[in-house]
């Protein structure tokens, strides 16, 4: 059989498999969930096979990069079926955000700057949801904005989800009075700069086109001095760095941040210097924040996949180094 034929068969198999499960879903099949015993068995099998690969490497038989991809895929997918729970302590950086927001008086105005887009939603969306939930539970007023075009859209998804939760729905929160989405504004960090003078100059209308002055929540909000706390969700430029440099250092805003793990190391210096009140770094930050708020949802669920996939990555780093050392020895012998 030619390679092309094999590839076509593989694609057809994926299609048939997907069709069966998709039809199953439409006919009401229940989602699969591994019991604790099965979950442990899967993890043990995974570890044993990694050990086997290490032995093969020591024998000089190297595996291809596709095997690494396959392992990472399995390590990420399998824990999503598992029921195992994972305990993690809340770090001071995460506690800082939680404490800052829970210490606010009811009715305080919180600005949520959503500067991210769908590609980084797995990390930042759980943070947005938990933060909004805490705000609503504590009767804080939320003002949402974004200097990334898709940020306010992501915020709307989070709002929609949290407002549908029974305890929040019971509060009968009103748009324009309890929360507002001012939408996106082009201009990168210059938007933050101008907001220091006047919010209205940057946001003539809200996300849906309602004029700024017709929104009771923001009518009397002139600039940052009328904001009690600011939370920035950021996945790049412009983001937390710019918020610190302009909003914090120029306009004395109290700022907490949620960042993708890629960006978190860049932002940590601002935490130790006190320019940030707290920082949620990546998915672990999201999961810790959920733990602090006692609402273990998406972030916590994803963390098991994170942990297992990290074990696989560490294992392959070790295996790779073994292979590297072995190849070095071989070339030395040849040389």
């Amino acid at each position, binding site marked *: 059989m030619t390679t092309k034929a094999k590839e076509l068969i593989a694609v057809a198999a994926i299609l048939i498999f997907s069709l069966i499960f998709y039809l199953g879903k439409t006919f009401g099949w229940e989602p699969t969930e591994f019991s604790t015993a099965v979950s442990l068995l899967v993890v043990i099998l995974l570890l044993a096979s990694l050990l086997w690969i290490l032995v093969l490497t020591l024998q000089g038989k190297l595996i291809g990069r596709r095997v690494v991809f396959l392992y990472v895929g399995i390590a990420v997918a399998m824990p999503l079926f598992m029921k195992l729970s994972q305990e993690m302590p809340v770090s001071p950086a995460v506690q800082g955000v939680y404490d800052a927001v829970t210490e606010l008086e009811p009715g305080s105005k919180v600005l949520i700057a959503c500067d991210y887009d769908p590609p980084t939603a797995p990390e930042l969306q759980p943070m947005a949801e938990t933060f909004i939930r805490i705000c609503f539970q504590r009767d804080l007023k939320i003002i949402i904005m974004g200097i990334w075009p898709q940020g306010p859209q992501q915020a709307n998804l989070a709002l929609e989800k949290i407002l549908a939760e029974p305890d929040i729905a019971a509060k009968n929160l009103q748009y324009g009075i309890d929360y507002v989405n001012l939408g996106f504004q082009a201009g990168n960090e210059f938007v933050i700069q101008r907001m220091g003078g006047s919010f209205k100059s940057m946001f003539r209308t809200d996300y849906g086109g309602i004029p700024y002055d017709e929104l009771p929540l923001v009518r009397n909000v002139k600039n940052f001095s009328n904001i009690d706390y600011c939370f920035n969700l950021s996945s*790049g*430029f412009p983001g937390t760095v710019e918020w610190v440099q302009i909003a914090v*250092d120029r306009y004395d805003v109290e700022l907490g941040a949620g960042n993708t793990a890629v960006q978190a*190391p860049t932002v940590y210096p601002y935490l130790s210097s006190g320019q940030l009140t707290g920082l949620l770094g990546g998915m672990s930050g999201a999961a810790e924040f959920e733990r602090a708020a006692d609402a273990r949802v998406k972030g916590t669920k994803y963390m098991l996949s994170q942990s297992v996939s990290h074990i696989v990555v560490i294992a392959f780093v070790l295996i790779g180094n073994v292979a590297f050392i072995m190849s070095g020895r071989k070339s030395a012998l040849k040389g």
Partner: protein
Amino acid sequence: MKFQIFVTLLALSLSVSAQDTPADTNLIDTASDTSLVIVAPVTSLIAIDHNYDKGEIIDLRWVPSIDDQLLDGKVLGYNVYRIVNNGEPDLIAELPPSTTSFQDQDCHLDSVYSYYVAALSESFEANSNRTAPISTEREWLNFDRKWLFLIALIVGGSVILFITAARRGTKLFVRKIAGLEAVDDAVGRATEMGRPILFIPGIRDMDDVQTLAGLTILGRISRVIADYDTRIFMPTSRSLVMTAGRETIKAAYTAAGRPDKYSDDMVTYYTDEQFGYVAAVDGVMVREKPATVFLLGAFFAESLILAETGNYIGAIQIAGTARPAQLPFFIAACDFTLIGEELFAASAYLSGEPMQLGSLKGQDVGKAIAMVVIVAGVIAATIGEAWDVPFMHDVVGWLSGVFSTR
């Protein structure tokens, strides 16, 4: 209750007699109505023009009502009223109890303002004295930030000084940067293999100094490429970078005496979308299999994906960025990496432009100041803390004050 009413009335009568402009109190018929909760007004209300602003803020401060207490407080809040140009009072703010200050941020230079604050109970509003009329002033310099200004002046001044020196022909020393020698070798390798060179300028626009540094190095690389008659391809994610890239390469080819070899197709725009751009460049790498890949500019999450693909196709990779978060991937997956500011230094070193050399040297002055202050600060803080020397505490306090921006 009666005693409280008496005290309140006494306080009110005293405050009324002491003021120039009588307060508008709501005492009419209230003294005889015992169902009302009467509270004392705020005292010592002052209005001051805010320092170092554009003339649009007035600060109000007051001593709260004696009935504004944490436990069993009768004051439910405060209303702030403003009178503009002797007109009618306007309610401009409703504040919670215990508030002792307010900032009116909606003032104009050409108006005169006066204020009074009303302490509110369930059924009573006790007005304070009106403040004396006040107008705002605009300040052109913010002396709260004098140290920031001074440090910016020293660093900026050094930059200008060094640029001037370089223009006059003074030789400015810049240390050798490892990895730069590899540029010529990398271009030579592509020539030998008959494969193209890929230049990726990052995903930021022309307003990012990293992109500018990348393009300066591109100028030098293009010159070598033109000499060797190798092919270069530069995919961009910003239209401005595309045009700037075209100009840079065209200038290099012209300088090398081969303008005919230049083509606009050497530089292409794909998309502003980060991962869309990455998908396209990855595709180019796998299909064209360039012998050498330059990744010089501002990179974000795409750095590892690009560097890994370049590594996979076996290209020699020379990278440089000032984004600290992306450097690990370049170091892991590339053959040579310009770490952080080395990118700018390399740009200055290769171009020899007085502007860039002067900037680099000026920044070194800033770094020298930072090093000296850090060492002095740490020594003073340690001695002060370890042996409890008050003078050292003062030194640290002063240094912290100088370097504080708040």
